[in-house]
């Protein structure tokens, strides 16, 4: 659909960027040492660091992706919120304090604290760069996707703009400016999400949502029709003529009708009510033109969707304000109109048809609409393994993400690392609870752009007025800036500290090390910009899930075992990270989802049927570490204590 750029969104975003540059300029004068550049001098207050954690962690995938997924699939989107938050338990109870105690700039410091192995440095740096790249691409593509509807600029301009701003932030003052950018972004995101949720509850529900009076509710037309035993449709309408019909899958009958002016449209047969129902269509014509409901984007024939056809059994209802609990109980007792998708071919034109799928509110509020888990509804063993694997990756991935781990070095003591993690859990947990309200509010508020559900949260904000829309849109940009900054600092540390200093043993003064870090930040930022342009149009939400799976497989077994298993050896750690990396990336590249979404080879049977590799690659990485460590014990084991036991001595 077509979006009108908001001048206020542009003004607020520019104000944010000016503030960010002022912060960077202020800290640039103070950041001369490598400790200042890579770890903000280690003197950030734990409460600031905790909120900066939230700013670092709550990426565009969290804010836009989760709200968008909930808006179209209900509770299944909230599973991500649960998994992403639960991962912080691993960070707090297992990783936070030891990381701070054993490291200096990067998580490789902690991995390498016992062995002083160049191999560990190399493999940890490679792992950091791979995980960061998997995480960076969706952020950059997200920046490009946001800039088109919100600021009216082309995709590449968004990527270039975000990339350039982030490079300036990181290259001027490294972790210090990054921390305060993330702090401001985290605080703004949570505060204005709360405002949005209060507005949702105050508005309540309606069976004909009109975006607070801004837009007329689109009343979906129906035409009486009969489906004969011979499979032929017959319509009872003087205004329309049946042209063609399709049955792309059993039970789904689509029809092309033509009105008296000759305008064609696609309808879906509702067997129960014996009517044809209006659909939304996006047509790629054989000539390469894209039509929305048969018209060009400028004709604005496409409309936003998402409503409840019945609220607590009644039609034509407006509830008025609802409470936190009655918000859910109302949805539970109502019927939500969701939208399913089917692609058909019409004389060389590829038509994506979005048709109504009335879904009981009870089903919207429990898992199963995206992740198949119920055997009675056809869930296979593979579906179930996939679900478990995703939940495992989210749980174990967080505490192994390099850009999260480096934030432990910005506080003065291990106790501060612990306290900042608790602040992070409070802020992030609160935000994730809000995502369920925002997503369901969009789902039932008539604001969803069915072709781009990532825009659900900003579009919901727009239904409450241009001010909230402008702020939420500007925060969405800030979200990308905050996360990308953290990823680039992590990558810069991996290159300058782990690879150049510790692995290659390049003798550098402190100032040269900072300079190397800055050059690395510019290089990584530039690569990320190029990839952001190349990957345009790809469904990038998978990449974040994969980044978690790769981090969980490559990094977490090594981190845990080096902390708690005294027989761990350097070779065991290297083998574990390597096997974790290779197995997770290979399983991803050979999965059916990659075949379908990345290679566009959905007609082929992929060698790997599960889409999330964690359930195989995490145990494999653990097993590798144990076996290799036992085999190489005599060579590497210098003493018989874990690094933590030594730290207590």
């Amino acid at each position: 659909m077509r979006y009108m750029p908001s001048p206020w969104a542009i003004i607020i975003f520019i104000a944010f960027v000016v503030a960010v540059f002022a912060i960077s300029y202020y800290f640039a004068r103070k950041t001369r040492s490598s400790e200042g550049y890579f770890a903000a001098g280690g003197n950030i207050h734990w409460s600031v660091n905790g909120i900066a954690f939230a700013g670092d962690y709550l990426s565009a995938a969290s804010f836009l992706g989760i709200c968008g997924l909930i808006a179209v699939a209900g509770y299944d989107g909230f599973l991500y919120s649960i998994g992403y938050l639960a991962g912080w338990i691993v960070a707090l109870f297992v990783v936070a304090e030891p990381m701070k105690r054993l490291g200096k700039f990067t998580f490789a410091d902690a991995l390498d604290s016992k062995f002083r192995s160049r191999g560990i440095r190399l493999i940890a740096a490679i792992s950091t760069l791979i995980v960061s790249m998997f995480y960076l691409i969706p952020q950059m593509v997200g920046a490009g996707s946001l800039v088109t509807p919100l600021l009216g600029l082309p995709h590449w301009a968004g990527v270039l703009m975000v990339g350039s701003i982030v490079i300036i932030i990181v290259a001027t003052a490294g972790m210090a400016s990054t921390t305060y950018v993330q702090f401001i972004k985290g605080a703004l995101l949570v505060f204005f999400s709360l405002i949005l949720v209060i507005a949702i509850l105050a508005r309540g529900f309606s069976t004909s949502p009109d975006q607070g009076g801004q837009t007329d509710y689109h009343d979906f037309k129906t035409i009486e029709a009969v489906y004969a035993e011979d499979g032929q449709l017959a319509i009872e309408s003087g205004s329309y003529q049946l042209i063609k019909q399709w049955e792309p899958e059993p039970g789904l009958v689509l029809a092309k009708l033509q009105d008296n002016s000759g305008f064609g449209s696609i309808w879906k047969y509702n067997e129960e009510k014996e009517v044809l129902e209006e659909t939304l269509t996006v047509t790629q014509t054989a000539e390469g033109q894209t039509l929305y409901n048969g018209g060009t984007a400028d004709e604005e024939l496409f409309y936003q969707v998402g409503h409840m056809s019945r609220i607590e059994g009644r039609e034509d209802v407006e509830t008025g304000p609802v409470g936190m609990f009655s918000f859910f109980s109302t949805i539970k007792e109502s019927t939500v109109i969701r939208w399913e998708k089917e692609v058909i071919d019409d004389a060389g034109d590829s038509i994506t048809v979005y048709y109504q799928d009335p879904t009981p509110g009870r089903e919207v509020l429990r898992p199963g609409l995206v992740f198949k888990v119920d055997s009675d509804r056809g869930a296979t063993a593979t579906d179930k393994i996939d679900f478990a694997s995703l939940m495992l990756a989210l749980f174990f991935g967080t505490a192994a993400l390099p850009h999260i781990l480096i934030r432990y070095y910005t506080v003065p003591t291990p106790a501060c690392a612990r306290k900042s993690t608790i602040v992070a859990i409070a802020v992030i947990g609160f935000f994730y609870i809000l995502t369920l309200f925002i997503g369901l509010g969009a789902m039932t508020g008539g604001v969803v752009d069915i072709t781009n559900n990532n825009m659900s949260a900003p579009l919901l904000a727009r239904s409450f007025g241009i001010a909230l829309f402008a702020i939420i849109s500007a925060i969405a940009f800030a979200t990308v800036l905050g996360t990308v900054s953290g990823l680039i600092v992590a990558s810069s540390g991996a290159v300058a500290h782990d690879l150049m200093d510790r692995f290659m043993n390049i003798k550098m003064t402190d100032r040269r090390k900072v300079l190397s870090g800055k050059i690395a930040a510019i290089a990584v930022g530039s690569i990320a910009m190029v990839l952001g342009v190349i990957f345009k149009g790809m469904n990038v939400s998978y990449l974040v899930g994969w980044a978690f799976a790769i981090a969980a497989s490559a990094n977490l077994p090594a981190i845990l075992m080096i902390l708690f298993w005294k027989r761990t050896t350097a070779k065991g750690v290297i083998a574990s990270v390597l096997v974790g990396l290779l197995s997770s990336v290979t399983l991803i590249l050979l999965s059916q989802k990659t075949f379908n979404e990345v290679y566009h080879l959905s007609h082929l049977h992929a060698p790997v049927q599960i889409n999330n590799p964690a359930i195989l690659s995490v145990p494999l990485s653990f097993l590798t570490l144990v076996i290799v460590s036992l085999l190489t014990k005599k060579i590497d084991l210098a003493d018989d204590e874990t690094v933590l036991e030594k730290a207590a001595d």
Partner: protein
Amino acid sequence: MAKDPAGKWDKDESIPYKIKLGMWMFLAYCVVYGGFIIINLADPKLMGIDIGSLNLAIVYGFALIILALIMALVYNFLASRMEKKYRDKEKQEKVVGQ
């Protein structure tokens, strides 16, 4: 200490206690989180049963988030208390030594 890169904190005798406490609390949370996954896999319909005006899926999901915060606060309270205990003990030993 094995390594003290930043050299900004003293030895910490409460580490073994905190490791043990962290591991137990981590395992306890794993059980609750694992329970959520197992219910979804073994009996997904159970997630739809009513609990007051909500259902089990929402109550369990919110509980996992709120439990994380409660356990985090408990962990911090116990860890801080132990750190203080060792600090006080150390101070006392210094006073006695003088």
